[in-house]
């Protein structure tokens, strides 16, 4: 990848536009190799009460030190809960990035745009780099931008479904209308779908489940890293001509030929 194409966000300069996650791994020990193979420089984590009954392996042991940590607020059902989790995450001393995720509907796990915007406003004011996860709705995106978000993270399909860019048209509109970077989050199941999102002009993709649950997460991580880079290059290259427009039987501009000097 040409390293003149740098993605700047929250004071970081990233050469990879693939964000990865740490959820759903059969074995967290695979995470460092996935980071390495995919080239990803940003990785998500969640915050939970310590399980006091069994001494669990801590995921932090497996995250390479060069990674930018993107804690999420999963588990939050309201803006207040998201703010509380974000503040706790920052107290961990791993930076001030936060992916806001406010979900109270456990059936479809769709994010609550209104509560997300409220949390975004509070946290942006407190100096967080706020990346809100959202349903791709233009009005919600605008309120998130007004609230101080650093990027917008629309879902491609409901969390964990790996169903691809079901919301493609809505994400296109966000890419077209918003000045903020659009990072497609959730739903991307295959590298070709990530590539498609990048070709559309997405600034980055966040892929967790599809990598973590692959039979070979390291190989899949590499495939996603390449797909995201390829899609980005295609976007930068600009598309080719799509249609050759056949000659109409009665030309629309025929009237110009008969107008002599004036034409």
């Amino acid at each position, binding site marked *: 990848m040409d390293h003149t194409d740098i993605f700047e966000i929250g004071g970081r300069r990233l050469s990879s536009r693939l964000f990865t996650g740490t959820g759903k791994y059969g074995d967290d020990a695979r995470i460092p190799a996935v980071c390495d193979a995919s080239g990803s420089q940003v990785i998500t984590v969640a915050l939970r009460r310590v399980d006091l009954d069994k001494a669990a392996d801590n995921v932090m042991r497996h995250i390479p030190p060069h990674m930018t940590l993107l804690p999420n607020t999963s588990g939050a059902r309201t803006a207040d809960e998201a703010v509380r989790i974000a503040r706790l995450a920052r107290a961990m001393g791993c930076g001030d990035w936060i992916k806001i995720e406010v979900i109270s509907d456990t059936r479809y796990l769709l994010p609550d745009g209104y509560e997300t915007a409220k949390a975004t406003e509070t946290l942006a004011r407190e100096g967080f780099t706020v990346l809100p996860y959202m349903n791709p709705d233009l009005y919600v995106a605008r309120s998130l931008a007004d609230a101080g978000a650093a990027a917008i993270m629309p879902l491609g399909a409901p969390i964990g479904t790996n169903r691809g860019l079901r919301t493609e048209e809505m994400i*296109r509109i966000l890419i*077209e*209308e918003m000045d903020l970077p659009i990072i497609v989050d959730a739903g991307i199941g295959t590298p070709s779908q990530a590539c498609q999102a990048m070709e559309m002009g997405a600034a980055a993709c966040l892929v967790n489940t599809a990598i973590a649950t692959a039979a070979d997460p390291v190989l899949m991580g590499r495939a996603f890293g390449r797909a995201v880079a390829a899609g980005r290059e295609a976007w930068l290259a*600009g*598309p*080719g*001509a*799509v*249609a*050759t*427009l056949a*000659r*109409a039987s009665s*030309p*629309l*501009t025929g*009237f*110009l030929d008969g*107008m002599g000097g*004036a*034409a």
Partner: protein
Amino acid sequence: MSFLPTALSLVGAPLEERFRAATGADVLRAAGLERVDEAGFLALLSPAAAPHLEAMARRAQDLTLRHFGRTVSLFTPLYVSNHCANHCRYCGFAAKNEIPRSRLTLDEVRAEGEAIAATGLRQVLILTGEAPHKAGVGFLEDCVRILRPLFPSIALEVYPMATTDYARLVAAGADGLTVFQETYDPALYADLHPAGPKRDYAWRLDTPMRGAEAGMRTVNIGALLGLADWRREIYATGLHAAWLMRRYPGVDVAVSLPRMRPHAGEFQPACIVRDRELVQAMTALRIFLPRLSVTISTREAPSFRDSILPLGVTRMSAGVSTAVGGHAKAAETGQFEISDPRSVAEVSDMLRSRGYQPVFKDWEPLEETA
């Protein structure tokens, strides 16, 4: 917030070189895209597009049908005053031109409105020169109130005002603002406007923005074609429209393509925009901004207006007089000579015969709730 930085950035930009560098392949690529960026728009305006005008026309027709259907909104101008303190070198109403000056009384405004409404039109465009002591905000407010029962949609093409003044006119019942930058080139602008309040390029440039801020539903911009290189002017106009659309997503942004005609002053156009070039400008705008409203006035001849109808036109004037009080009684000297003298009924018949619906009333605001 202002469009000024963008407008000024075009001054030193090597646009001529970029127009020359564009290739036919660039043109066809842009014409095939769902979303065209500024570079694509530039290619569509370049000389390289000339052999591809038919392809651009077909694309423009497709996009216009998709976003506007087979409808064209009709309106007519209503000149309420031709007093003017400006010295625009190209304008028949310029202060130094010795023409009869008048301002309608409110009774005359009502009579004009009734004459227009009798033709079936329900959209009217109030025009004045720039002479706030003769036709100030208070007078225009009165005009809007008088016309409001006759016209669901009232636009103003008057002189640049502050946001608060536009808000007063919106409250009185106005919903549209037309203001042309004339030329986006600041040096030429200064030359063409040697005296009078219109000299202030920046104030005029952000007038559409102030109208949008004040709650106008429609904002119509444009460059007066003939003053300067049309490619540059249309490029700037397109960027201005895109800028407004992005910042005011609730506002219907429209562009007019006024070509200069002979008029009462001695000034003649610096360059003639040919029919073929006007078609290129209009189709390029349509492809760049598929949802842009495009207004074609009666400056254009009937056969040409009819022919370009499918290529992107969404609004037309009809039954036009450019003279003060010209609807209710015989016309005096107009601001410019019109080329399409057809009545509203004639233009409507033409539209229907070509499969288009003439739209007299697009919408009407509900009464304000207390």
